[in-house]
């Protein structure tokens, strides 16, 4: 009888939780902010941007919400798109780390604020490398590095060039892993670096609008050959983790010796003890692993659109852009001339003056599809 009572009450509690009221309406003066980024970025906004912005704009508050990943933000964006056709309240204003090319049809229907037209006072300061389409506002960059276990690999022997890295991976089978390019920038930028290697390390060959079928068919296959060549020497003869965090986890479990990782994420992991103090970092010297810029997108039908635009402008100010460097370990989204001069000097040696930035958009689709079809099936499903 006890068992049955337990079952009934458990089922009742579960059913009750499912129907708990979840209604809410956007409040005037409260910017509903969503992010797809990891915890370190949310911490940065909570501890640095929010207090500074709220102090500078009395009466406006920031409601910071972790939207999970890209898929999470996409479903909120879909809600915004649906709200647009019915003139309803999307209950969202501001997205951090989202590409305004999603969801399908949103650009055409004008879901996103065009920052060229929005009148940001700091818009002209943006690093031209980061700008792709006017509905994406690049506000911070970060770079992918190689993180490795110094107890197994002497820093003096860490690979410094792409050929060195390939040679090291083959000489140490099972000790390297990168994540699937569609889920996590560390693996994506490793794949992009292979694409650049296959095309003479020439970044200028890749622009946002030249990902034509002819170009992708001509420029990508050589990169797939490079990646297929190292696949048998990867962890578990060609396994790929499903995200940045999972790669860090394998490095932390000492299952592999080296992984590509985001600079800001790996620094935070070492600081918090997720990765041991003995974790080493190295960047390739012939051409660094590409980095990327995180974008801000703003819904054009949000209740607090104007406040959200003000926030976007605020984020590009010298105060916040310097904090991106000092607090986050990232790169500023504005050109280096607009960062405090002492910081510019302090970071001059650590951060290269040029971050290779690979264009997103159609190239990403081509790389994603090509990699899954060509490189990944190297895994023998029967093994």
């Amino acid at each position, binding site marked *: 009888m006890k*068992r049955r009572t337990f079952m009934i009450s458990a089922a009742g509690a579960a059913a009750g939780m499912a129907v708990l009221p979840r209604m809410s309406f956007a409040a005037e003066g409260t910017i509903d902010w969503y992010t797809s980024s990891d915890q370190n970025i949310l911490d940065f906004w909570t501890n640095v941007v929010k207090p500074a912005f709220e102090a500078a704009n009395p009466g406006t508050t920031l409601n910071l919400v972790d939207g999970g990943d890209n898929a999470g933000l996409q479903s909120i964006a879909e809600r915004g798109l649906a709200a647009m056709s019915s003139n309803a309240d999307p209950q969202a204003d501001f997205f951090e780390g989202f590409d305004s090319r*999603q969801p399908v049809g949103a650009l055409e229907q004008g879901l996103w604020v065009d920052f060229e037209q929005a009148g940001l006072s700091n818009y002209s300061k943006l690093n031209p490398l980061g700008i792709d389409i006017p509905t994406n506002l690049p506000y911070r960059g970060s770079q992918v590095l190689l993180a490795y276990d110094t107890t197994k690999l002497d820093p003096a022997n860490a690979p410094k060039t792409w050929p060195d890295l390939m040679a090291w991976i083959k000489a140490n089978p099972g000790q390297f892993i990168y994540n699937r390019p569609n889920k996590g920038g560390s693996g994506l930028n490793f794949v992009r670096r292979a694409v650049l290697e296959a095309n003479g390390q020439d970044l200028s060959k890749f622009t946002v609008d030249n990902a034509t079928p002819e170009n992708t068919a001509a420029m990508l296959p050589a990169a797939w050959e490079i990646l297929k060549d190292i696949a048998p020497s990867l962890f*578990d003869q060609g396994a*790929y983790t499903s995200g940045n965090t*999972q790669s860090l986890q394998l490095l932390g479990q000492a299952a592999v010796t080296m992984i590509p990782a985001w600079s800001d994420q790996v620094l935070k992991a070492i600081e918090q003890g997720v990765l041991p103090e003995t974790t080493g970092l190295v960047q390739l010297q012939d051409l660094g692993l590409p980095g990327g810029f995180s974008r801000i997108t703003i819904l054009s039908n949000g209740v607090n659109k104007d406040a959200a635009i003000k926030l976007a402008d605020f984020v590009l100010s010298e105060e916040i852009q310097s904090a991106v460097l000092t607090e986050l370990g990232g790169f500023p989204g504005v050109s280096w001339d607009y960062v405090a001069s002492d910081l510019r000097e302090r970071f001059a040696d650590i951060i290269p003056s040029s971050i290779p930035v690979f264009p997103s958009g159609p190239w990403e689709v081509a790389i994603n599809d090509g990699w*899954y079809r060509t490189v990944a*099936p190297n*895994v023998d499903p029967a093994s």
Partner: protein
Amino acid sequence: MPASPERRRPVGLLLVAVPVLLVLWLVIWPIISAVITTIWLRTPEGTQFSLETYRFFFSDGYSLSNLSVTLWTTGVCAILLLVICLPIALYLRFSDSKVAAYVQGLAIFPMFVPSIILSFALIRVLGPNGTVDLLLNAISLPKIRSPYLTPWGPVIGLVWDNIPLTVLILLSGLGNVSNQSIEAARDVGAGRFALLWHIILPRITNSILVAISFAVLGIFSAFTLPYILGPAAPEMMGPFMQRTFRDLYDPTSAITQAVVTFGFCIVFGLFYVRSVAKNRTP
């Protein structure tokens, strides 16, 4: 005074109307609209009837290998679930000991663990240099080859995740087996195996079918566990659809994959409907 059949009928129909309309609106209509989207393709000259997306799916080696790995995973999971859950359900039904309550608690426990947490826990436990490896190492046994990032990773996760529902359904089916029939069979000398084969199994075939249908429907389109624990490629239909839709921005292909998935799932759905209908007929 009982109401006459003529007066009762509209009330009954009204009561049924709400769920039926909901099913039409939320399930049937999206299916129809999905099928329409994939066979009337938008071209510059207007919409045209074409089976191109299906022709592509069934001639594309990559899509087919994704489909076959999904079928393989589903089949293996269904067999493992039956092998694991039937003994548990039999034990819970026929045991009067105190331990049974704890066993039931353990069997139901996975229901309360979200699959994302389960995934990361499994990486810690079964992953390379995980808890299992450490324990094996402590008693000087060799390391295992981790199922993480192989097709067996999602199988382990999905089986664990589906144990509660399967046990509950089997247990409810075992409720139909009366103690008297068991005792009667024992009296005429039936052994344990004969009891199971001739008395218990025939009465719970329906429940087994329902349990397997439910498990298969969930597993076929599972997302989180195959995504985090499984290999990059071939991928199961769930991650494949999601990637096609969200990373390749190709809704038409994603819907085609969804319709194909639905086609396989409907077979098991029909099993379920059939067994429910069979139960209803007096």
